[in-house]
């Protein structure tokens, strides 16, 4: 008969067997079960709430996008793309709405860089939309936490109505109505914050005849 293993070794082998069993249950069976049920019951949401326009996939209603003019030189990484006045503009993003680089600016509340940036954004947005600088809301001049925020405040959406209507030669009333239709209140009336989904709104805008 062979000598029994030392206690310390036996203990670690027990630990390893336990970990492997747990990995099979929690790491494979559990996510497969949840994925299977989700794909049967909530396929659209489970696959990322993809939105289509004219039969083509144009994004996810949960993930924000840029609505910029094409760059003069697409290969120039230094050149910043300018916002396209035909579209409702989203919030600023620390990662340029790249889903490969979600995240925030992480600049502090007294950061001089951030203070300067916010002041410059306020002036630029006021001019872009033809409104008073003081009236530009906070969400318009700050970067979101995820860098993928698809939403803006109702106030910021309303400020953009005249500019968008003019660029698209549409009556302002019609665009304002579209904003109203895409305004989402707080969930159940009190959860979260009121917002307008820019991806959905711009999609509806592009589908106007």
């Amino acid at each position, binding site marked *: 008969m062979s000598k029994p293993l030392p206690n310390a070794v036996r203990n*670690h082998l027990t*630990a390893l*067997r*336990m*970990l492997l*069993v*747990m990995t099979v*249950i*929690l*790491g*494979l069976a*559990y*996510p497969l079960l*949840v*994925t299977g049920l*989700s*794909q049967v*019951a909530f396929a659209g*949401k*489970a*696959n990322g*709430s*993809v939105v289509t*326009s004219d039969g083509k996939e*144009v*994004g*996810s209603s*949960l993930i924000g996008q*840029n609505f910029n003019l094409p760059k003069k030189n697409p290969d120039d990484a230094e050149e910043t793309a300018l916002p396209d006045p035909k*579209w409702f503009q989203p*919030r600023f993003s620390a990662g340029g*709405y790249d*889903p*490969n*680089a*979600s*995240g925030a600016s*992480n*600049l*502090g*509340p*007294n*950061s001089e860089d951030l203070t300067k940036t*916010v*002041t410059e954004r306020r002036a630029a947005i006021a001019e872009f939309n033809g409104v008073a600088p003081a009236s530009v809301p*906070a969400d318009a*001049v*700050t970067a*979101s*936490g995820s860098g993928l*925020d698809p939403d803006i405040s109702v106030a910021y959406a309303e400020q953009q109505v005249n500019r968008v209507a003019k660029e698209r030669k549409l009556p302002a009333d019609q665009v304002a109505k579209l904003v109203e239709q895409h305004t989402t209140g*707080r*969930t*159940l*009336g*009190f*959860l*979260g*914050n009121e917002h307008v989904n820019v991806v959905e709104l*711009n999609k509806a805008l592009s589908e106007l005849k």
Partner: protein
Amino acid sequence: MSSTLAGWLQAVALVGALALCYRPLGDHIAKLLTSASHLRVERGLYKVVGVDADADQRWPVYLRSVLAFSAVSVLFLYGLIRLQNHLLLGLGVPEMPAHQAWNTAISFTTNTNWQSYSGEAAMGHLVQMAGLAVQNFVSAAVGIAVVATLIRGFTRNRTDRVGNFWVDLTRIVLRLLLPLSIVFALVLVASGTIQNFHGFHELTTLAGDPQSIPGGPVASQEVIKELGTNGGGFYNANSAHPFENPNGFTNLLEIFLLLLIPFALPRAFGKMVGDHRQGYAIVAVMGLFWVASAALITFFEAQHAGTAAQAAGAAMEGKEQRFGIAASSLFAASTTLTSTGAVNSFHDSYSPFGGGLTIFNMMLGEIAPGGTGSGLYGMLILAIVAVFVAGLMVGRTPEYLGKKLGGREMKFASLYILTTPTIVLVGTGIAMGLPGERAGMLNSGAHGFSEVLYAFTSAANNNGSAFGGITVNTDWYDTALGLAMVFGRFLPMVFVLALAGALARQQPVPATPGTLPTHKPLFVGLLSGVILIVVGLTYFPALALGPIAEGLH
């Protein structure tokens, strides 16, 4: 509805939901930690693993099982991360450097979930679900198992047996964490959180740009990330990412999940020691700190102090429009008071006092209500100190729940309390003393110091949230913070288990008229005072150099 009223209603709904779950969930946990019978599936599992489920362990054996399981977990996870390019669902992510893989393996095994990597760029689906998510479950279960031994220390007499780790672990996973996770993962998916095995999905946006939409088994990991107070995001933006946390409802659900078990454990404690009032006293102290902190952070964020926030008109930098100020502040308070560390908004951009409070929350030692299990054992240690302080005032040997608190017991309690501050302050001190590490700060001055202080506080307390500003994916920070996580997790556990052993050995003493009642408001006040004094005296100088200096600037 005004945003202030909506903010209040969210908090009230949250408290209501937690209160409803307090009794049934606490009783369920007490039952699974004390029941003598095994489920059939558990018997099968014990057979495969080779465990004698009816043999209780002495505390050193229990400790060795905890450490062996954690050591094997670190090695397994490290190997999985390093080899992921060669495995299924690797998504072609680049190989992770050794120091970062080490840091990540430790981080998830210690229930910290500090992340020096970016989820969408560095992790394939297999590592996320079979490596990281598995540790989210079992590291949470380890915390609850350890607090179970401490409670048994109070309930058992003249024995050297504190329980069986393998049985505790199995039951906590199978009877508590897994069923809740399955249900709430489906609720999350129904609300918009994604759950698939796709890689990046390429498409062209409305404006004609290319965009790649990520995929992944997110909901199944998101739910245990909150429920197990882990906090490691599937994506870099964590619970701010719309695929993890798509709307106001999922946001409140995630806050609820991360508070659920820590707030129900005092009930399990009360039930096991045979006096529910003891549980109510503990949960009252936890609730007091949580309410105060949530209210203060919301207040400071609504004030939006700071030149940048003033220029913007509201503290919306780093916050999501669909959540707003109130729901972000509530999340921030809850995630830093439990050892979760998930974020739905970025604390680095919080106002000086708001952000300072998130650091202070962690410095409390993650006890109000704290991580799963670790919160309650931290609080019980402080309760022991409070009883001891009261005993000193009247000059008699103190006792708590019928057990005498003598020299041996107080030695373990004191060591517990000294461990984490030592790691935080020494670690921060060394980082500030090294020019290269100081240069890793994004912001300068007092705010930069806060970033480093936050990192070590978060690691040593196993929180895992980050102020975010410092570059932490370096050899030095990965190694130093990795060590802070290991010592911050396992040294306290050693002292808790030793204390459990010392208490279980004792013969109980009957309560006398001189015994301090530990279920009355007087004790709630005393314990709250002890917490504030211990934490305040320990960390005040460090806080003065960071957030306080910045806030008064």
